[in-house]
């Protein structure tokens, strides 16, 4: 649908990821210098110039698989390591949080304010590193340039595109359950109280007019809600009060990050039908992905001393348990891509290309060769 959705999706999901990692780094008492390095490395990779150039080009959204791969890569852009279960949980939390923010935005345009909330926080994380700071500032400018001229209808199209992307995701998040913004069936609650969006009137008034424009009658009706006023408009500039609180950091050391797997067979049937239709643009998308990966510089894991593992769960046992017990329908298929000039790695990529189009474990060797050519050429150029 909207071809301007990807930058917002990426920046907001990235922002949520940083909130969660920041919380876990503190909770696990990782030394401050290491924690800071991780945050800086990830943010540097996120705002890599070449990467963002690709991102901001008009395009349809990636498949869920491709997007998950990008974030896998991003999470490992530093000395920090995450096990499969932790990465899965991280991704669940990121996506449900952003889904919540998109759904509850008062106006479609407020998605931009949510994005600015994330950007403001990211800027704060790197305020001591001028090189990254300038990249972040440049991204603000690109966001402002691209999005502030859009009409309400165009923003609603972006919102609809995002909601369709998140459709049928109902993972329960304990913070949301506690705050009663999510039901036990995983659906989010839409409030009928509080202020109405900027530009909307509180429901309740019917005005009728004569032919010459004079108001001839007024009727009031009970709106059934408890609306308390109109929201002010937040700032769409580089600085300023955003007014909307969605997209600010909801985690703190005292609020744990937990998800519940609420898979039922009903849900799994739905997920399968949408995701597993053969994708004719698999090659196109993988090429795009390869270009993106090329723009993301990978940090060598470094020696054993500086690297460390972060756990999204309270204990290692819990993490192991989560991996084993994760329902099949919630497993993320990740494409493992190494952007190196290694001949072996390129062969691996061709094989993966086959995997991607076949949606099965078996590589499709005969037809993979021609499809792989473009991709190989691209990888060689990196």
């Amino acid at each position, binding site marked *: *649908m*909207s*071809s*301007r959705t990807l930058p917002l999706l990426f920046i907001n999901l990235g922002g949520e990821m940083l909130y969660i990692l920041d919380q876990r780094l503190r909770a696990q008492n990782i030394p401050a210098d290491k924690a800071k390095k991780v945050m800086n490395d990830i943010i540097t990779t996120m705002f890599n110039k070449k990467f963002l150039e690709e991102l901001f*080009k*008009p395009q*349809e959204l990636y498949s869920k698989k491709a997007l998950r791969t990008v974030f896998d890569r991003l999470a490992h852009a530093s000395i920090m390591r995450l096990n499969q279960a932790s990465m899965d949980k991280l991704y669940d939390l990121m996506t449900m949080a952003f889904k919540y923010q998109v*759904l509850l935005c008062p*106006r*479609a345009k407020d998605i931009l304010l949510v994005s600015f909330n994330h950007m403001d926080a990211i800027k704060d994380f790197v305020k001591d590193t001028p090189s990254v700071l300038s990249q972040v500032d440049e991204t603000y400018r690109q966001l402002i340039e691209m999005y502030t001229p859009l*009409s*309400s*209808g*165009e923003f*609603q*199209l972006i*919102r*609809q595109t995002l*909601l*369709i992307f998140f*459709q*049928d995701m109902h993972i329960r998040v304990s913070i949301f359950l506690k705050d*009663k913004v999510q*039901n036990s069936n995983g*659906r*989010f*609650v*839409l*409030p*009928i109280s509080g202020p*109405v*969006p900027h*530009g*909307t*009137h509180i*429901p309740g*008034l*019917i*005005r*009728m*007019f*004569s*032919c010459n*424009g004079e108001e*001839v*009658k007024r*009727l009031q*009706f009970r*709106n*059934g*809600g408890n609306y308390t006023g109109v929201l002010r408009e937040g700032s769409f500039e580089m600085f300023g009060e955003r007014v909307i609180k969605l997209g600010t950091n909801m985690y703190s050391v005292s609020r744990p990050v937990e998800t519940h797997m609420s898979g039922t067979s009903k849900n799994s049937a*739905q997920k399968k*039908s*949408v995701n597993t*239709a053969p*994708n*004719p*643009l698999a*090659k*196109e998308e993988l090429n795009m992905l390869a270009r993106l990966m090329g723009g993301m510089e990978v940090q060598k894991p470094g020696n054993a001393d500086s690297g460390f593992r972060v756990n999204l769960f309270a204990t290692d046992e819990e993490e192991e348990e989560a991996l084993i017990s994760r329902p099949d329908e919630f497993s993320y298929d990740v494409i493992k891509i190494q952007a190196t000039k290694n001949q072996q790695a390129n062969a691996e990529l061709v094989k993966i290309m086959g995997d991607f189009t076949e949606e099965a474990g078996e590589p499709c060797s005969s037809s993979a060769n021609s499809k792989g050519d473009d991709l190989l050429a691209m990888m060689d150029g990196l």
Partner: protein
Amino acid sequence: MYHKEKSIQMKSSASALYNNLSVLRIAPRSLTYFTVVHANMVNMVSASWDGLNYSHRQLQSKEANVATSSSLIMQAAWCVLPSRDILVLTSQKGIQMYESDGSIMVYWHALDTPETQTAQAVFARGIAAVREKYICVGISSGSMLVFDVPIKGSNITLSEVLEEHKESITDLASECSGSLECIADMVSADDSGNLCVWKSGEDFQLLNKIPGFDMSCSSVKLWKGTVVAGYGTGQIRLYEAVTGIVHAEVNAHARWIYSLDIAPFSGLLLSAAEDSLVRVWHLTMTPETNSVEVTSQTIPGRNLTTPRTHRQTLTASLPLSPSRSCTCITSV
């Protein structure tokens, strides 16, 4: 008034799209068909009036043979013409038309999609059957396609392209009162809230243009010469179609209106919005004074304020038949 009937479960959830529920009553067979769009698919269910038989079918969007992305469906709606009913699907790739039970595709119109992706999205949205033989469909560029539909068969032809709107078409509606006296046959709405009023024919004639106020009009209806328009601000406005005179303004919802519908004989209007509420209004026309009165209605025995914890997004609302109506409330 309305009373709640048996709920019908669709095969999958409804996508967040305007006007996402279409209903066709087939009296001779005591059946009602419902369609709801889910991403690149349309879920169709045929329900017998005795509530005992349900049969489901799914229609896929047709993807043109080019290496571009998947085609999401924007809208599915039945077009009721005197001789036949056609099911129309509009997507990012084009317009598909089926016989009413969805069994045979009778026509496919591909949209012009540029080689490389542009910032402006390309899709078709807004569907209306007009008079005896026209089906009109809106495009994201603001153009509208008018198709000429024969009494039977697949010889459907593109009769005209109307270029009046500059913003994406959101919804189209034809006069639904059944009255032949009405001058205006169709109204079109776009993303800037502009409304165009048309008379059908070999060449469609623009009767009036009602300017918007920079807010998208997502759903529109035409009843007894009155345009009923729902906006992203949650407001509903009623205009006299041919002159553009404002009859009424209702601060109806606290969020974006996603769907409107009218029961033509009783004048009951339904509005559904992202605030999770469905509201019922009663429209009374007084021809002598050329005025329309709007009052709010509550459905007896049904409290619109359901407990907070059960509130879910309304992405669909309901078209109405003369005597019966049904709601489909689904979540994203």
